[in-house]
C-alpha cells in the first residue's frame, strides 16, 4: 500500500465512528436516561414496574395471568376450554397490535397497486406523481384530521358525492375504520416508494432469460420479480406496523379515547410525570418493535435477489386509446385510481378547500391574509411563515447531508455479514422503534436541561442540535432503502474494481453506490421528509423564538384565536407546507436523478 492511500483506508472506519458518535449523543444516551426509569429505583435494579404493567389485565388482557399466577395457567386454560373457548381480551397492547395489523394490511393494499403502476407503466407526469407520493408522510396529524373530517365526515365531501347518486350517508369518522384509513394515508407512500424502487431495479435480462427458457409470463413473474420486490414490500410492511403500533395523535383525533393505543397512555403518564410507568410501557413497545425488526432482518439476510446492475423492465403505456377499455388489468387500475383519489387526494383537496372557506361556508382569503399579517408582525412570540419555511428547508437539507452518509455507512456495515451483524443492525434501527414522546423526553432531560460533566452543565439546543436529532431519526430510512439493494449486488463488480487497485472506499463510491443510486435517492427523499415532518424534538430543541419550523409554526396557529376558534390559519399554513414539500421532493428526485457519486 502506498502511504498516500491511508486516508482512503481510514475513511470508512472514521465514518462508522462518526455515525456512532452522533447516534449515541442525540439518541442512545437521551433515550437510555428515560428507559432507566423503567428498571431503576433509587439507583437499584428493579423489575417491579415491568411486572406491574405485565400483570395488569388492562394492559395485557389474559396474558397477565402468566405474570401474576403462572402456576394457575394450565388450570385456567382447561377452564376456558370447558367454557367453550369464549373470545378473550388482550388488553391495551393487544388492541394496539390488532389496530396496527389492520393498518398495515390497508397500507399494503393501497400502496402495492400504486407501486406497480409507477414501476411498470408510462404516462405523462409519472415522475412528478412518483415524487409527490411521499407528501402525505410529512403532514402534521392535526391537518390530516381536518382533511379527513372534511372528506369523510357526516357532512363531508364523500357523503355529498354519495348523496348525489342516492347512496349513503356513511359513518366513517370516530371509528376504527377512520384510524385505519388515516394510517394507510400516512404509510401507503412508504409501500409505494420502497416497492416501486425495488421493482424498477429488476433486471430485464433475468426475466427475458426465464422466458427464453420456456417459463410462462406468470412463472417468470413469480420466480424473478416477486423475489426482487419481496424484501422491499416486507420492509415497508414492517415499518408501517411499527409506526402504527406507536401511533398517537391521529388515533384520538379521528377515533376517540375508546380506541386508544399504548402510546396514548405513555403520553398521559408523561403528562402526569409518572415517568416510571411511562418508561415501562415505552420499553415494552420498543421491545415488540425491535423483536419484529430482528426477525425480519434475519429473514432479509437470507434473501439474495440480485438487483441494480442490469436494465430495468420496459414500461407499458398506461392508456392505449379505446383499447384501454378492453384490458381487464387497466380497468382494475382505473378502479384503484378512484380509491386512491378518495383516500389520498380527498383529504388533501379538502384541506385546500378548508383554507379558503369561512365557518359559514363562504369563500374567504382571510387565512392567507393572516399569514401575511404574521409575517409583518414584530410582536415577540409571533411565528412568522417565511422563516418557518426557510428553517424547514435548511434543516431538511442539513438532515439529508448528514443522514444519507450515516445511513449508507450503517448499510455497508450491515451487509458485511458476519456474526452479530443482524443484531447490530437491529440496534442501529432503534430510532424507528422508539416512541417520539420518549425521544423528546430524553432530549429534554439531557440536551435542554443539560448534562453535568466535570462540574460543568453542558446544554445544547438550536439549529445544529435540531439537524442532529433529525438525522438520527432519518438515517434508518436511508439504511432500510440502501441495505437490501447493497446486499443484493453482484459482488463481481466490486471485486473487479478492487483487483484493479481501487481502495475499498473508492470501490464503494464508484461502483456499489452507483449501482444502487435509486435506493440512495429514495433514502434521501425519506430523510428530507422525516426532517420536515418532525415536531416533538424540534419544538424542544428549537428553543427560543427564531428557529421554528413549518410544523411548529402551524402548531402555534392552531392555538391562535385572532380569527375566532377555527383551524383556518393552520390549514393555510398547511397548504404552504404541502406546496413547499411537494416542490422539494420533485427537486430532490430531479437533481438526484442527475447525481453522479
Amino acid at each position, binding site marked *: 500500500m502506498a502511504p498516500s492511500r491511508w486516508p482512503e483506508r481510514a475513511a470508512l472506519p472514521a465514518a462508522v465512528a462518526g455515525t456512532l458518535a452522533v447516534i449515541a449523543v442525540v439518541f442512545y444516551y437521551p433515550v437510555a436516561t428515560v428507559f432507566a426509569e423503567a428498571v431503576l429505583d433509587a439507583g437499584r435494579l428493579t423489575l417491579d414496574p415491568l411486572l406491574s404493567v405485565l400483570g395488569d389485565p388492562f394492559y395485557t388482557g389474559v396474558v397477565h395471568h402468566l405474570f401474576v399466577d403462572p402456576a394457575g395457567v394450565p388450570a385456567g386454560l382447561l377452564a376456558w376450554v370447558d367454557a367453550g373457548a369464549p373470545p378473550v381480551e388482550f388488553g391495551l397492547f393487544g388492541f394496539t397490535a390488532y389496530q396496527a395489523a389492520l393498518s398495515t394490511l390497508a397500507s399494503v393494499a393501497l400502496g402495492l397497486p400504486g407501486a406497480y403502476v409507477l414501476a411498470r407503466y408510462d404516462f405523462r407526469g409519472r415522475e412528478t406523481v412518483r415524487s409527490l407520493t411521499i407528501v402525505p408522510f410529512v403532514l402534521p396529524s392535526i391537518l390530516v*384530521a*381536518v382533511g379527513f*373530517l372534511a372528506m369523510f*365526515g*357526516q*357532512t*363531508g365531501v364523500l357523503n355529498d358525492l354519495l348523496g348525489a347518486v342516492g347512496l349513503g350517508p356513511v359513518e366513517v*369518522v*370516530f371509528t376504527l375504520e377512520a384510524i385505519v384509513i388515516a394510517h394507510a394515508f400516512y404509510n401507503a407512500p412508504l409501500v409505494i416508494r420502497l416497492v416501486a424502487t425495488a421493482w424498477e431495479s429488476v433486471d430485464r435480462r433475468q426475466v427475458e432469460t426465464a422466458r427464453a427458457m420456456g417459463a410462462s409470463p406468470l412463472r417468470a413473474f413469480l420466480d424473478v420479480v416477486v423475489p426482487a420486490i419481496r424484501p422491499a414490500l416486507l420492509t415497508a410492511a414492517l415499518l408501517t406496523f411499527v409506526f402504527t403500533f406507536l401511533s398517537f395523535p391521529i388515533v*384520538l*383525533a379521528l377515533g*376517540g*379515547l*375508546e380506541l*386508544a393505543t399504548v402510546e*396514548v*397512555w405513555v*403520553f*398521559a403518564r408523561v*403528562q*402526569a*410525570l409518572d415517568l416510571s410507568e411511562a418508561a415501562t410501557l415505552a420499553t415494552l413497545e420498543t421491545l415488540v418493535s425491535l423483536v419484529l425488526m430482528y426477525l425480519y432482518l434475519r429473514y432479509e439476510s437470507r434473501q439474495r435477489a440480485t438487483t441494480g446492475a442490469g436494465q430495468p423492465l420496459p414500461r407499458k403505456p398506461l392508456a392505449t386509446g379505446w383499447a384501454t377499455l378492453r384490458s381487464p388489468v387497466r380497468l382494475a387500475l382505473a378502479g384503484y385510481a378512484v380509491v386512491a383519489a378518495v383516500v389520498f387526494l380527498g383529504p388533501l383537496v379538502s384541506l385546500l378547500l378548508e383554507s379558503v372557506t369561512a*365557518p*359559514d361556508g363562504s369563500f374567504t382569503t382571510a387565512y392567507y391574509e393572516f399569514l401575511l*399579517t*404574521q409575517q409583518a*408582525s414584530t*410582536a*415577540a*412570540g*409571533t*411565528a412568522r411563515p417565511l422563516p418557518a419555511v426557510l428553517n424547514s428547508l435548511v434543516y431538511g437539507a442539513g438532515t439529508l447531508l448528514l443522514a444519507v452518509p450515516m445511513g449508507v455507512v450503517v448499510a455497508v456495515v450491515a451487509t458485511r455479514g458476519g456474526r452479530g451483524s443482524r443484531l447490530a443492525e437491529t440496534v442501529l434501527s432503534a430510532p424507528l422503534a422508539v416512541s417520539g414522546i420518549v425521544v423528546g423526553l430524553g432530549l*429534554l*432531560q439531557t440536551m435542554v*436541561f443539560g448534562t*453535568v460533566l466535570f*462540574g*460543568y*452543565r*453542558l*446544554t*445544547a*439546543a*438550536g*439549529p*445544529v*442540535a435540531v439537524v442532529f436529532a433529525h438525522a438520527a431519526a432519518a438515517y434508518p430510512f436511508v439504511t432500510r432503502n440502501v441495505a437490501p439493494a447493497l446486499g443484493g449486488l453482484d459482488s463481481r463488480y466490486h471485486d473487479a474494481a478492487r483487483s484493479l487497485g481501487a481502495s475499498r472506499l473508492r470501490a464503494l463510491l464508484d461502483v456499489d453506490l452507483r449501482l444502487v443510486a435509486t435506493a440512495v435517492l429514495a433514502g434521501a427523499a425519506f430523510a428530507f421528509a422525516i426532517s420536515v415532518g418532525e415536531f416533538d424534538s424540534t*419544538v424542544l*430543541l428549537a*428553543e*427560543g423564538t427564531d428557529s421554528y419550523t413549518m410544523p411548529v409554526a402551524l*402548531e402555534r396557529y392552531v*392555538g*391562535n*384565536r*385572532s380569527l*375566532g*376558534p*377555527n*383551524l383556518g390559519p393552520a390549514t393555510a399554513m398547511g397548504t404552504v407546507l404541502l406546496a413547499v414539500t411537494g416542490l422539494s421532493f420533485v427537486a430532490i428526485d430531479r437533481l438526484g436523478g442527475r447525481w453522479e457519486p
Partner: protein
Amino acid sequence: MRRRTFLRAAGAGSLAALAGCAATPTGDGTTPPPEETTGGATRTPRETIDGTPSGTLRVATYDSFTGEGTAGTYLKSAFEDEYPGVTVEFTTPSNGVNQYIQRKQSGAPIDADLYVGVNTDDLVRADERLDDALFMHSRDHLDRADTIKPDLEIDPEGRAVPYDTGYISLVYDESAIEAPETFDDLLEPAYEDALITQNAQQSDPGQAFLLWTIDAKGEDGYLDYWDSLVENGVTILDDWQPAYNAYMNEEAPMVVSYSTDQVFYGADADLTRHQVGFIEGEGYANPETMARFADTDQPALARLFMDFVLQPDHQGQVAERNVQFPAVTDAQLGETFSELAKEPPEAVTFTYDQLQGNVDEWTDAWARRVVGN
C-alpha cells in the same frame, strides 16, 4: 435567557454558538440552600425595589398567550411603557409547568421568574413531585389581592394568584337539540351520539368536564355514569381544538367548551350553533393563575408585574384578548363582551385540597373505564 444573549454577543459564528451549546459551572446555578418546608411555601417578607424598576423579567407561559394581538403581548408593551427600564421576555416551553418541575427535579436552572398559566392540577403535581417548593408565596404581598374574586382562589398557600377564569359549559346547536337540564338527561335517547368532549388526560376542558361529573355524581358514582355516557355514544377526542372543529363540522350537536363562545362571533352573527348550556345551572370554573418561581432573582419585579396584571384596565384587556372572565371584581370590560360572555348561575370547582392526591387516580380510572368499554 441571558445565556443566549451572551452567546449572541460573543459572535454566533462558531459552531458551538450555532448549536446553542453552552457550558456553565454547576456552582453557578443560583439555587438557594434547601429550606425546611412542609410541601408548602416559606413566607418571606415582602421584597422591595430600590429606586426605579429595571432589568429583565422572564415570563414563562403557554404558546397562545404570546404573539400578535394576544394578552401577553399587550401586557409586555404596557408594562415596558410604564417602567422604561424593564424588558419583559417570554419563554413558552412546549410541556408547560412540567418543564420546570422536571428542571427542579434534575437540578437544572429555572430560567424564568414567573409562570403565567398555572392550573390547579399543575400546582398539585408540582407539590407531589418535588421536595422543595417550586413557587413562592405572593398573595399577601400584592396591593390588589383584595379585589380578587374569592371563589377563584385555588391555592391555600397563596402562591398561585388567579388572573382570569374560564367556565366550562356545553356549546350546542339550538336548531338540532334542546339544552340538557341535568347530567342524567345526557343519558336519554334524545342525546344519543350528541356530545363531543375531550380526553381528560391531556386537555384542560376535558379534565374540567370530568371533574364536573365527579362533583355531580360523587367519587363512587362517576365511573358508572361514564359507562352510561359511553353507552349513549359520547365521543372523546384528544383536545379542545379537534373537538370544536368536529362540532363545527356538524359531527354532533353539542360540544364541551367555554361559556365565552359567542364572544368570538359577535352579536351580529348567527348564534344558532353557539348557544351556551349550563347543566344543572352550573359551569365548571377553571381559573388561570400566575406564580413566582422560588428560585427567581427578581422577586420584587415579578410581584410588581403580578399587581400590574390585576389592575382594572389591564384585567379588562386580558379578559377580552384571552376570551376569558377577569379575576377581579372591578375590571373594566367592554359592553359587548359582558353581553356575549355568559356566566353560569353557579360555579363549581375543585380546590387544591380536594384535588391533592386524587386527580391523577380519578383521571386514570376514568380513562381505563372508557377504554375498557
